[in-house]
């Protein structure tokens, strides 16, 4: 992360309830352009709900979402996508009966709002970046889980996002594949995209993220440098339930 820190996305005092107890409670976070912000937390801590609130899939019960200085809390998910929020899903949500190319075409035409020619160029660049050029004609529903995850990343990038929300995109990857993914995400951040990355694989995030936030029972319980954050007793307690081994962080 280089240059002046420009706020790309901020959530301020977010609470979310589905009718019962709050799933999120007074959550405030900010990611600047070019930053990779990792988010970890136990299952049910509210990570994916937080992504839903940022992307517009869920309306918050309280608080606001600010994209590049503009309050977007009342915008629909579609409007947020057009304004620069790209996302992947915990379980890949590809357009299964459409080809890889068509999946990206949807993103370039609607999310990025590009003309035909510009869309072609961006699709080609994105497929090359994600090493997917050999599967352009493949039907998304016939891809393996890992390829569908890669397609989701490519599709999110094809919306030309200012903010990229990645939900457990490294799950199921081999160490070598995870290394490649980290290199890709780091390169994206270097282009000025703010990346917020939810991941269960702590060692992946400690390598890739500039900062780490820890969610526990719907609240931010710690945030800061990844390695330092992981050493905090309250993080060890709530996340590991025990002392982390060194290899968890490596």
């Amino acid at each position, binding site marked *: 992360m280089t240059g002046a820190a420009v706020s790309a996305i901020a959530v301020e005092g977010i609470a979310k309830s589905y009718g019962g107890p709050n799933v999120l409670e007074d959550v405030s976070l900010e990611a600047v352009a070019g930053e990779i912000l990792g988010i970890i937390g136990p299952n049910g801590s509210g990570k994916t709900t937080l992504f839903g609130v940022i992307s517009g899939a869920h309306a918050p019960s309280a608080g606001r979402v600010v994209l590049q200085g503009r309050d977007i809390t009342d915008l629909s*998910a579609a409007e947020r996508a057009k304004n620069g929020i790209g*996302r992947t*899903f915990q379980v890949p*949500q*590809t*357009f299964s009966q459409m080809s890889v190319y068509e999946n990206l*075409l949807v993103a370039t035409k609607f999310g990025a709002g590009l003309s035909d020619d510009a869309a072609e160029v961006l699709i080609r660049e994105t497929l090359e970046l994600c090493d997917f050029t050999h599967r352009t004609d493949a039907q998304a529903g016939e891809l393996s889980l890992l390829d569908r995850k890669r397609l989701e990343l490519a599709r999110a990038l094809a919306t030309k996002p200012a903010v990229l929300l990645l939900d457990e995109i490294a799950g199921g990857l081999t160490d070598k594949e995870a290394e490649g993914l980290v290199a890709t995400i780091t390169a994206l951040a270097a282009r000025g995209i703010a990346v917020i990355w939810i991941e269960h694989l702590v060692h992946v995030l400690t390598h890739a993220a500039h900062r780490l936030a820890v969610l526990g029972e719907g609240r931010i319980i710690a945030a800061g440098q990844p390695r330092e954050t992981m050493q905090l007793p309250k993080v060890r307690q709530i996340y590991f339930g025990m002392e982390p081994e060194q290899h968890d962080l490596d």
Partner: protein
Amino acid sequence: MRLPSINRSFIVLAVIVLFLILVPILGSRSTVNLVAEMAAVLAIALMWNLLAGFGGMVFMGFQVFVGIGGYAVFMAANGFQVLPFPFILLSAALCALTALAIMPILSRLQGAQFAIASWVISEVVRLTVFQTSVLGGGGGISLTAMRSVPRELRMYGTYGSAALVLIVALVVCVFLMRSRVGLALRAIRDNATAAEAMGIDLRRTQRLVMMIAAAVAGAGGGAYYMLALQIGPGTAFSMNWMAITLFVVILGGIGTLEGPIVGVVVYFLLRETLSDLGSVYFILLGLMAILVTLLFPKGAWGGLRQLIGQDLLPIRRNPSESKG
């Protein structure tokens, strides 16, 4: 030989238009009437396929547009005692407005709820027409405006109306599905959550497509009942329309443009050859539907496509073909 996909579509459309032009020139009266009926049914089936097959909106009360379209032509033509043919435009407009009115309810529903709600809406309209004396109540009305129209003009006018509706239906399907709207529609069908996250306005897209489908189906209904010269709530709003539409679309191949064309040919072929068998005909129709869907899960067109090796009316977008 593999032509660029849009060229293939143009050739197929041209062949169909040529066929529709030749039928009244070369065909007998009964052939002209039969093709007119086929054209109206196919237009309606194509529009249902547009909603259900491409948009994932399984509208089980589609007969509401057939009925409204039919009644619009009858009421306007009888009211002014003029030729009914231009009033298929009124049918289209009324049905588009009906779709606009019901979409705020339907767009909140999905899957089975959407299907049932659409059927309930159709039933409400049917019962309302049944109770409305100015619309002829349960007995329906005759197309009195046609009484003084010479037989030839009646036949060719009706045929022309039905053929025109079919051509519009085909052109709408081909170009809509290759356009930005078609791309959005397929994305919504595949995954509404992801479609929205990619910047697609779900409700606007669905509303637009629903209005187009309703308008063309309404015009199809208008043309169909011009041929019948009599309309009543029991037939115009009958679930029988859904049975025919489902047979044509699913047997032919749902979610393809070629499927309903194949389906309507099979349906009318069976009807014209076996309908004298009475209830046995319906049993054979049902068995045929089961057999085809078991053998060819993608419909009869799915089987034919394997033989041909390419789509005739392709909608899939390829690099350097992504116009729209």
